């Protein structure tokens, strides 16, 4: 089955979506991320969608879910690299993805995650790893 790899970079988890996702792949990603965040005590999740040419309502909801799940588990998250055509289409679809933090690219996204952890350094126990 198609499975999206999750990379760990310090206290952050990195996900790069480069394939056309099947619904069950998206759901599996959600599950995988949730357990990885919990297991590793990650404080940040970055999802790179710069290769995604289509984001429909299902994928959109998945991104929103991942954001919420990360938040509940005490990590901040950011979605980076949305393509202009995708943004325009999402808006027309009526999806504004409120609650999902976004950034232009991986660099900005990592910067955002760093700032978020700096602002709330005591939110996560540091003896998890």
């Amino acid at each position, binding site marked *: 089955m198609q499975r999206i790899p999750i990379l760990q970079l310090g206290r952050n988890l990195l996900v790069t979506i480069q394939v056309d996702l099947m619904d069950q792949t998206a759901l599996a990603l959600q599950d995988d991320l949730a357990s990885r965040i919990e297991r590793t005590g990650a404080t940040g999740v970055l999802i790179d969608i710069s290769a995604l040419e*289509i984001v*429909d309502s299902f994928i959109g909801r998945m991104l929103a879910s991942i954001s919420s799940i990360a938040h509940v588990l005490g990590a901040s998250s950011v979605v980076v690299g949305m393509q*202009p055509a995708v943004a*325009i289409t999402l808006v*027309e*679809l009526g999806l504004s993805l409120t609650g999902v933090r976004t950034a232009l690219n991986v660099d900005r996204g990592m910067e955002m995650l760093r700032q978020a952890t700096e602002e709330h350094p005591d939110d996560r126990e540091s003896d998890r790893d």
Partner: protein
Amino acid sequence: MTANPTATEGSVPVRSENDVVTSRQFVRKLAQQLGFSLVDQTKMVTAASELSRNVLVYGGGGDMEWRLRQDGLRAGLTLSFVDQGPGIADLDLAMKDGWTTGGSLGKGLPGSKRLVNEFELVSTVGQGTRVTITRWK
């Protein structure tokens, strides 16, 4: 699935999650063939994704019929998503949405409607549903 270069219409099955992905990619090819702009391609493929998924999830599987159009000087693409599922009981409700609320999207029909130029929904309870969308270049 490769498109016969001279064919102007056809049908692809939508019976599994894999089919939803394949139909998306097929629509992308067709839209590119017609020379749609990137944004228009994306809108059409996204609408197709929504409606294919509906066919699978609500209709119990079905087909996507496609047709290349030529209306005088402009080119277009028409897609019909057909299933023999339970049908939609309240069509008005299905087409209602709150654009700015961003809440539950249900079947995503009004959203899909905004992505295309022409949208037609025919549904009979107990018999099935047919959603036809057209996008012109």
